[in-house]
């Protein structure tokens, strides 16, 4: 098998994995603060259409990404007000957010079906990108792919090494204790939810401006749900999250490849392969119940109401 072929195989896996990694990184921070936002799929779709429409109107894909992040923050704030300030149930509100996001994105996107918008181009790093094999993999990618790698390292550093990260984990672990010590639980959770919303929005824009650079109503195709599953099955550990996202990307590509070479398996089964495969592997990885219990934010999805 020649090297160019292998290299393009790896590039495709990276491309398929990045949106999951982006959305799941955001949700990881949200959940570490004790908030379970099941609306990732809805926020991704809103981000996708906001990014696509903005890029189409302004001609700038970069502005599209900014708009997608802002749209993600805006819709996550609806969720935050409902659950953190008005104490609505997080599970129900999150599901509603997904359904709402789906519908709103379809409505806003009705006029954009079949139109093209500016595409996010790869940034080839001079000289380095010319290196055979690793050049195209490491140094000729679009900015969001570089960003996703930096992000996961930054998140790991933030959670484990900084005092602010310690406070975030503390709020997710015991909001009553954090409150008693004088930390602003609700404000921290708002910020963590907004961060998750921004990244879900960016993940959506990645899909509509790069991965399949067209708007369609089913653009996210359940990736938001896979991102949520990744967070849980990685037991809230950033680098396991990275591995899980790439596993999913790898199996997605494998499924496409199998279809391409005409393996006689019904195509719906092949399409289901990445979902089933990723979950199966992650369940095996996270069998250690003790480790999961240790890393799981103990206050995940619980109400917090301060008496002051």
């Amino acid at each position, binding site marked *: 098998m020649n090297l160019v072929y292998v290299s393009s195989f790896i590039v495709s896996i990276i491309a398929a994995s990045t949106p999951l990694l982006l959305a799941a990184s955001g949700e990881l921070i949200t959940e570490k603060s004790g908030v379970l936002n099941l609306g990732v799929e809805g926020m991704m779709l809103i981000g996708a259409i906001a990014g696509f429409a903005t890029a189409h109107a302004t001609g700038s894909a970069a502005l599209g990404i900014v708009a997608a992040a802002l749209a993600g923050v805006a819709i996550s704030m609806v969720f935050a007000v409902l659950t953190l300030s008005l104490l609505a149930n997080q599970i129900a509100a999150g599901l509603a957010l997904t359904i709402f996001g789906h519908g709103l994105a379809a409505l806003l996107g009705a006029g954009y079906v079949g139109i093209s918008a500016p595409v996010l181009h790869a940034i080839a790093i001079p000289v380095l990108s010319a290196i055979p094999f690793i050049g195209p993999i490491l140094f000729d990618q679009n900015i969001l792919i570089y960003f996703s790698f930096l992000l996961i390292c930054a998140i790991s550093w933030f959670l484990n090494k900084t005092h602010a990260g*310690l406070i975030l984990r503390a709020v997710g672990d015991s909001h*009553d204790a954090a409150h*008693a010590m004088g930390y602003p639980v609700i404000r921290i959770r708002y910020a963590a939810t907004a961060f998750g919303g921004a990244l879900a929005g960016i993940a959506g824009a990645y899909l509509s401006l790069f991965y399949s650079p067209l708007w369609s109503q089913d653009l996210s195709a359940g990736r938001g749900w896979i991102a949520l599953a990744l967070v849980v099955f990685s037991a809230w550990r950033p680098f396991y999250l990275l591995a899980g996202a790439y596993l999913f990307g790898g199996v997605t590509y494998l499924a496409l490849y199998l279809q391409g070479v005409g393996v006689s398996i019904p195509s719906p089964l092949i399409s289901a392969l990445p979902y089933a495969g990723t979950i199966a592997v992650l369940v095996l990885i996270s069998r250690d119940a003790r480790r999961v219990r*240790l890393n799981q934010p103990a206050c995940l999805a619980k109400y917090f109401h301060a008496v*002051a």
Partner: protein
Amino acid sequence: MDTELDPSARPPLLVLRGIVKQFPGCLANDHVDLQIGEGEIHALLGENGAGKSTLVKIIYGVMKPDAGSFTWRGETRTVASPAQARALGIGMVFQHFSLFEALTVSENIALGLNDPKDRENLPARIVDISTRYGLPLDPTRAVHDLSVGERQRIEIVRCLLQNPKLLIMDEPTSVLTPQEVHKLFATLRRLASEGCSILYISHKLEEIRALCEAATIMRLGKVVAHCIPAEKTARELAELMISAKLKEQSFSHKTISTAAPRLVLDRLTVRSNQQFGTDLKDISFAVAPGEILGIAGIAGNGQSELMDALSGEIPAGTPRNIMLDGAPIGHEGPRARRRRGCCFLPEERNGHGAVGPMTLAENGFLSAHVRGALDRLGLINRKRTQEFAAQVIKTFDVRTTGPRAEARSLSGGNLQKFLVGREVLQQPGVLMISQPTWGVDAGAAAAIYEALAQLAAAGTAIVLISQDLDEILLLCDRIAVIAAGKLSPPIPVREATIETIGLLMGGDHTAEEKHAVPA
């Protein structure tokens, strides 16, 4: 106390005047005055619900008072947040520890330090302070692996790192073994001698008499007395606290019955279903008709798992692990066990023992419909259900508007009386009850003890799980101690000493062996 100082001779550190705090439907603090001198160990005494916790939360800046003045070293101040209180030099050790289970000792302490400067070389400073004050701690260990005593040390060390002028301790000994209490007192006396004042909150009178120089006694949100505890007897303090003459209670400890045991646990081993729970290992005991077996131990050593295993909420490994009147029931759920004549009352009243938003009648039905025949052809028999609840209310003097009142509308003590009554009136063959008097006032506790003693006299086998050693010594015929999920062999209460029980609570199995030899 060797130095009998007049508290008024000390320069005041903190003076509170006229503190008022109103909650919906309850005046938690009604013009409360409090004065603490420098280097003084001051007791704040009162029953559950007297307003002690509210007052200290106000001092520590967690809550804002509606009215009143706060004077710190002669200056009037407002303390708007715990961070401000810490900046003044106030440290607090909470009753329900403000610790984060998933984090390490050192991370937990770092969370309490606002100033980044304080967080430098933290592990080394933790080791330094903890050895200086005799509070051994390993900064790298995760909190969920630590005993309750060790957890309390984390909080104390966290306060000490900030050189506090006032250390507030909220019910610090309720979770400690007698030996640990002894060590804690030595640490507190040393701190006071170095000039740190201590506000010591408790309802344990002997402790206060041994430790504190001055006391402020609260009842129903008001200060009822300021006194020197060493000059009063425990009984006088108790009567100030509850405003009524206490009836002396004593129950004769019967000789152990030789009748065939009703309930037998045989090497019961169960994995906890809680996030940071304790697994039960090889629990064995037998309870005869008419006997009360007390299970003592510090919270979190497997009591809730044992209760869940006894009630059938966690099934046992094999049916023969739990035998009732000779029948294996380990695999059966709570309903099947109730049908066989068992009744249960778990520790947590709201949410586990009772459904808060349901009426008392409905809550009575939930537990008693089998033995009380409150259903007919699978439907609720309204009339009998109402009558049953009314009977519990009357027999146990539950203060409520009637069977139609919602369970959550009752105060903790009243709800507990209703729940105990609900189980007792079913005339169970075996009763398993956990923390029957937690948060219950002295009068209600006496009524509950009376009811349990009568039930045992009528031939019921009772398993009583409690953290209150005095309660077990008062009521039970035999006592066993649960520590880290293991149960010591039961010994007659008459032969048990506080020292032995204390060692067993700390999981010291040599104490067990010492007992095994003479027996």
